[in-house]
């Protein structure tokens, strides 16, 4: 249930829905009724949380593109990488739409935003190299998420911790003998 938007300052209506999504379960701890002087910091916190979540979606989309590049370049890795790729696609979906309100289907590799190289461009030529590159990407992203979740609102922190854990598990699977 979205909370009543604060009276101070204008903002796009979408902010209310997002605040509600992140606010469910008390994510924005200590929310006032919209009339007190503390609301400026609540707004900042909400904006920070939205930015953090958006960044998380983008990072997972980038990782998804890397999986798709590896899958395109090394079809023999399909069985091994397929389930991991599916999980990363789910991460994009849930990070983008935590309450499943928009009912998007599992995303395909996104169009390259603002001039990024196509997914297939930097895939190592050998399978081992491709797996190692994915493992490194997963590991780095998991570490980044573990750092950023400390300051996130409670529910977002929980989701970030979960996808960071999934990423660490992916790295283990990618680095282990098949």
């Amino acid at each position: 249930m979205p909370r009543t938007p604060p009276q101070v300052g204008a903002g796009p209506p979408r902010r209310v829905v997002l605040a509600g999504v992140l606010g469910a379960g008390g994510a924005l701890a200590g929310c006032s009724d919209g009339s007190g002087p503390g609301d400026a910091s609540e707004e900042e916190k909400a904006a920070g949380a939205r930015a953090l979540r958006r960044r998380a979606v983008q990072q997972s989309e980038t990782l998804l593109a890397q999986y798709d590049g590896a899958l395109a370049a090394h079809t023999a890795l399909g069985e091994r990488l397929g389930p991991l790729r599916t999980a990363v696609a789910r991460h994009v979906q849930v990070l983008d739409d935590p309450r499943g309100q928009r009912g998007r289907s599992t995303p395909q590799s996104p169009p390259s935003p603002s001039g990024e190289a196509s997914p297939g461009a930097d895939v190592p030529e050998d399978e081992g190299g491709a797996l190692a590159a994915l493992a490194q990407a997963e590991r780095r992203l998991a570490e980044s998420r573990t750092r950023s979740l400390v300051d996130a609102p409670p529910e977002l922190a929980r989701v970030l911790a979960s996808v960071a854990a999934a990423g660490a598990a992916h790295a283990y699977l990618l680095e282990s003998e098949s």
Partner: protein
Amino acid sequence: MKELAAAQAALSAEHATVYGYGVVGGRIAGERRKEAREAYDAHRARRDALRRTIRDLGGKPEPAAAAYALPFAVPDGTAAERLAAELEDRLAGVYADLVRASEGARRREAAGALREAAVRSVRWRGTGVPFPGLTELHGSDQAPAPSSSALSDGPGSSDTSGRPDAGSGASGTL
């Protein structure tokens, strides 16, 4: 959930896990016995850390039960590995809740414990789930959630069937 309650829930799960790994260690096949031992030691350390946290929060750490009912019979190494995975899955759930309920260094600790549980679960089972610890997302897009009676103080299920193959990409598992 308040931090103290979440920490008690995590401690309770670690107690059960320490007990469970005792069973695992007795049944596990040779080359994985070392891994079980390391997990056992790691969980005892986590248990002790949670006891300290609970005292820091002004609470009284709940004690372990004298024994725990297992969720299924563990006659051999295969069942032992499955039990170990279930223990770790349950821990992932309580640590995800503890992440939400805590802040700062304790939140970082809980996130680390969640990550370890997720990795161990994959090591035992061979596959994972997209959202370790997020039990509300278990179901169509993840392997079934561990039975809530897994390692409870009461009678467990007598399910001894094998876990369905979770390796298919279409099911959305790792």
